[in-house]
Structure formats: C-alpha cells, structure tokens
C-alpha cells in the first residue's frame, strides 16, 4: 500500500521552479532518501510534504488521507531540522513535551512517553539542561526525541548530520538506522551526501533541478544508473567517463575504440539505436580499476600517464591522464607509489563497464 504518495507536485517561486512535477510513493515503514546536489529541490520537496510551504500544483497523501492543504501540525508528520531547531528557552524535557502538551495529552502520558524516548536515545542525564548547554550530537538526539515522542506517521530528516563532525556523523548514522529498525516508522531523509544515502536507504530518489532522475534501491542505482548524472553522483570517488567511438555495430555487441583503450568489444543489448561513428560515454568506477591486471579474459586494459598518488593508508588513489586528455582516477587497495609522468596500466572487468549515449542515457 502506498503510505506516502506524491502526485505531480510542483513548487514555483516567482520565476524559479524549485520542484517541477515530481511523483513518487513510499510503502509503510520504508526508509526513503532524497539525494541530489544543492538546489535540486530535495529540501523544498520535503518542506512541501511537511506542509511548511504550499504546493503550486499536485497532491500529497499520507496514510490514505489527502493532506495537500492541511496545516503542518495536522499531517501527523515530525521533522528533524538541519539546525535541530530546539526551543532555546525550554529545557530538554520541555522541548520534548511541547508537541504533546499542545494537543492536550494527559500529564502522565506525556511523562511516560518522554521518558521512553529519553531512554531510547540515552538522554536521561540531560533532561533538565537547556539547548545551549548541550553539544551538537546531544542536541541532535533531543531533536530526534522530540519527534519520536509524538509517534508520527511520517518522520522527516532534513540533512540532520551535516552540522556534525565526521566521527560523530558515522555514529549518528548508525543510530538513525537502528532507530528505524526499532520503530518501523516510514522515514524520508534528505541529504547531499551519497554515502548516507547508500547506507541508510531502502530506496533512493535522485533529484536534479527539481525533477526526479531515478528512483531505486542503492544496488539498483549503483549497478544500473539510467544516465550519466546518476552514475556520476552515486559512488565515491566519482565515476570516470571516457569518450569512445563506435567502430562496428553488431546485434549483441559494439566494437569501440579509444586511444588509451585500443579497440575492444563490449556486449550490449541495446545496439539498435547506435550508429557507426557515434561517440558514446564509457563509464568506469575508480574502485573497479586494478593495478596489476591478470591475464584474465574479459578484462579491458587502460594505458595512462600518472599525475600523482594519494596515500590513504590502506588504499591509494591514483590521479592519471589518458592519451586523449581524459582524467582517470583509480582507487586501488594497498600502498602504491608512482612517479609523475610514468606510464601505468590498469585493468577493469568488462562486466563492470557502463555505457551511455551522447545524451547521457544508459545503453
């Protein structure tokens, strides 16, 4: 059953279209992540779901009821803000009780719920403190606690981890995942960090310039991106793109050529639309490139010139140039060095190659 349904939602501001016709749905209990570069409309979309802004067109349904024009407080939605947005003059307990007090919940029940939430989030010691006396991570947990207490139908997170330092971020990511498992509530999470998206999501919605690029599970997006944008966005470091020319077209394969790659065959199902002489984009993920290529079949060899190598401790990141000027970045296990200007050879399994047409669509 579609628990959250967004139908043709648009949002215009004067001459800017922040969200242009987005439709998607989420099942009950699902963890959906909206991801995309800044300005892609992900936060706006979330605010529309929350009711903090009015849609210019389209409809929103939550748990079967249409809430498109409902006030925020009446949608059964709770939100964790990027800046936590705790009430500065109330202590932790009051912050968490506020929502329930407003709907006239009996005192005893408020106390019970707040204590439960505090226990889940390990806030028991901090109940009497004010926000300004708390650290970033603690404030975050209070913000989450404030949301849990209301037992909302839908949980919204607006880039909650961006203000935390790296170590804390990893820890909180785990906390949020654990919370989702325990509570089983439908969650919508907005972030620009694809690592968060990949690790937390049941499904990811990739947005760009107000439109949906692709919706799918993390695995789907990684293995089968539908265009170069999604392919480049998911995965870190970014996928390498190299322009290849079509030399021959066969029903089940294409013969492609590139100065650094030589001539090679690549199996493909959709060869119909491709013509000889066309230029396509070949995608290679840095983590799939191997340094000492074995003489295995189905391995493509790449000749590059080394620029510099970054030592990451257990792995090394190579920055290199191909003959035609394309940048090729490789992420290889182990500690390696290379002199600037020296010739290197990488290998990549054919099955790990991605192919995109001139418009950037996947083939």
């Amino acid at each position: 059953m579609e628990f959250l349904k967004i139908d043709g939602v648009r949002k215009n501001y004067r001459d800017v279209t922040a969200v242009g016709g987005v439709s998607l749905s989420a099942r009950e209990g699902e963890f959906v992540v909206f991801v995309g570069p800044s300005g892609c409309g992900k936060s706006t979309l979330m605010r529309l779901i929350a009711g903090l802004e009015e849609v210019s067109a389209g409809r929103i349904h939550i748990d079967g009821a249409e809430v498109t024009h409902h006030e925020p407080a009446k949608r059964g939605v709770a939100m964790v803000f990027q800046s936590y947005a705790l009430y500065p003059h109330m202590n932790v307990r009051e912050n968490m009780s506020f929502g329930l007090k407003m709907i006239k919940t009996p005192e005893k029940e408020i106390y019970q719920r707040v204590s439960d939430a505090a226990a889940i989030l390990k806030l028991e010691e901090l109940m009497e403190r004010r926000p300004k006396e708390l650290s970033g991570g603690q404030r975050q947990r209070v913000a989450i606690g404030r949301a849990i207490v209301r037992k909302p139908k839908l949980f919204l997170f607006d880039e909650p981890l961006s203000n935390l330092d790296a170590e804390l971020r990893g820890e909180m990511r785990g906390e949020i995942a654990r919370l989702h498992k325990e509570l089983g509530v439908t969650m919508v999470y907005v972030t620009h960090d694809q690592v968060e998206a990949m690790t937390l999501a049941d499904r990811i919605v990739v947005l760009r310039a107000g439109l949906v690029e692709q919706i799918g599970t993390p695995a789907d997006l990684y293995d089968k991106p539908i265009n170069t944008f999604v392919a480049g966005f998911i995965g870190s470091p970014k996928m390498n793109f190299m322009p290849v020319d079509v030399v021959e077209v066969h029903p089940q394969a294409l013969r492609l050529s590139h100065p650094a790659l030589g001539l090679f065959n690549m199996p493909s199902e959709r060869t119909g639309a491709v013509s000889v002489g066309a230029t396509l984009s070949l995608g290679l993920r840095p983590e799939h490139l191997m340094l000492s290529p074995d003489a295995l079949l189905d391995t493509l060899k790449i000749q590059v010139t080394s620029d510099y190598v970054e030592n990451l401790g257990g792995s090394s990141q190579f920055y290199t140039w191909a003959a035609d000027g394309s940048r090729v970045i490789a992420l290889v296990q182990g500690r390696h060095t290379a002199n600037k200007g020296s010739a290197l050879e990488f290998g990549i399994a054919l099955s790990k190659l991605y192919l995109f047409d001139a418009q950037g669509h996947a083939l």
Partner: protein
Amino acid sequence: MWFLAPAVLTLFAIGIYPTLFALVTSMRKYNLTRARDGFPFIGLENYHTVLTDSTFWQTLWRTARFFMTVMPVEIALGVVIALLLHKPGLSFIRSLVRVSLVVPLATTYAVVGLIGRLIFNRDFGVANQFGNWLGFESLDWLGNQAGAFAAIAMMDIWQWTPFCALIFLAGLSMVPNEVEEAARLETSSYFALLRHVQLPYLLPGFTAMLILRSADVLKLFDMVFTMTRGGPGAATDLVSVYIQRVGFRIFDMGVASAQAILLLILTIFISRLFITLFYREIDA
C-alpha cells in the same frame, strides 16, 4: 587613550559640571526674582520644601498615572503592529507601513503638541468630528481636566507606538526560522506559537521599552508645553513641565534644582529596577 579623552572631557564639562552646579544650587536659596536676598547656603532646606510640597507629589503621581496609561496601549499596539509586519505576504504594504512608522518619531515634539491642539479643538477639531460620527457629543477636550489628560495621552501614543512596534519587530525577527517551523509542526494554534516561541524574544524589547519610555515620560516637556501648557489647572502638569515653571516662571532656581536632582535620582532608580526585574537573556 587619546581617542577617548576629548569625548570624555567634553561630556564631563557639559554634563558633570552643570550637574554639580545644580547640586550646589539646590542647596542654596536661589530665587532670581529676589536677588536682593543674595544666594545664601541653606543646606537641605530646599529639599525639605520640595518633599513637603504636595504639588510636587501630585505632579509625580500624575506623571506616573500618565505612564501607566500610555505604556500598556503602546506595548499592546506595538506588539500587534509588529506581528502584522512580521507575518509574510503583502510585502508592498508591509514595507510601506514600516517606512511610515518613522514619521511620528521624526516629527518635532513641539509640533506634535501644536497638531494635537488643533485636533482636539472643541469647534474645529477632528477629534470631535470622529466622536460625532460614532454618536458621541462634542467635548471641550483641552478645556476640561480629563479631556486634556486623554488628549496628551493620545498624542504620546501616536508618537511612540511606532517605536514600540519597531523594537518588537526586531525582536521577532531574531526568532530563528527553523524554530518557528518546528513549532508549526507541533501546533496549529497561532496563540500557542506566540506565547511559547515568540514571547521570549519579545521580552528584551519589552524591558528596553520600559526603561526608555519611563525615562522619556519623566522628561516629557515639549509636546505637553505646546499643547496645554500644563493646564487646564494642573491636569496635564507633568514633572518636567512643573519644574520648568518653577525654574523659569517663578524663578525659584534653588527649589527647582532640588526637584531636578530628585528627579535624576528617581530616573536612575527606576531604570535599575526595571533591569533587575524584567531582563532575561535569550540563549541561542
């Protein structure tokens, strides 16, 4: 150090020196119309005269009453206007109103009094015209005690409500957007939002208003002087108007100086009081 010196010296010369002079004068018999009597030192006798002068106490009481009349109205209206200006939408009108708020503040206080005199005139003043439209009889505003008091109160409200509104507006705009939004997600009640989220940000402004306005009311002279001269009778005789009369109509400088010094002490005392009672810091 030298940056500071010129200013300090100037203020010292202009501020402290006369104040000390006033202090000394307050302890002498200093009536300019009886210069023949000389200006002997009489210690605290002037203060005694002042403190036992029932007119003086009545004047103080009257000034306090004035303050208690205009303050609640100015604060209430100020909050309402601030809320109206803070609410999004209708941006052109809102900017227009915001800019126009400056007009009453820049208007010469003396002229405000003159305008007031015209508006509240029994025969050709608009106040009575408005009253008639609403079904009331024409009043001789400036000719009767209650009317005059009300008239100066209304002019003061007109002049200072915008100031109140601007201060409160500044307070409201300090509420972080996301905190307001978080509250909107938890309640749809406008009043709950007002009370729990916005009020704490209005409190410092409220304190500032109290302090500034109480000092101002004690100083209020220009508008009252031109509008009623303190009359009829003593209906609008506020403290500063009274002291000016004692000093420059009756020319009893000694007594007037004593009154002024007492007023100074009162002003300092009141501002301290308000600060300790009402001031709460807002923590981000």
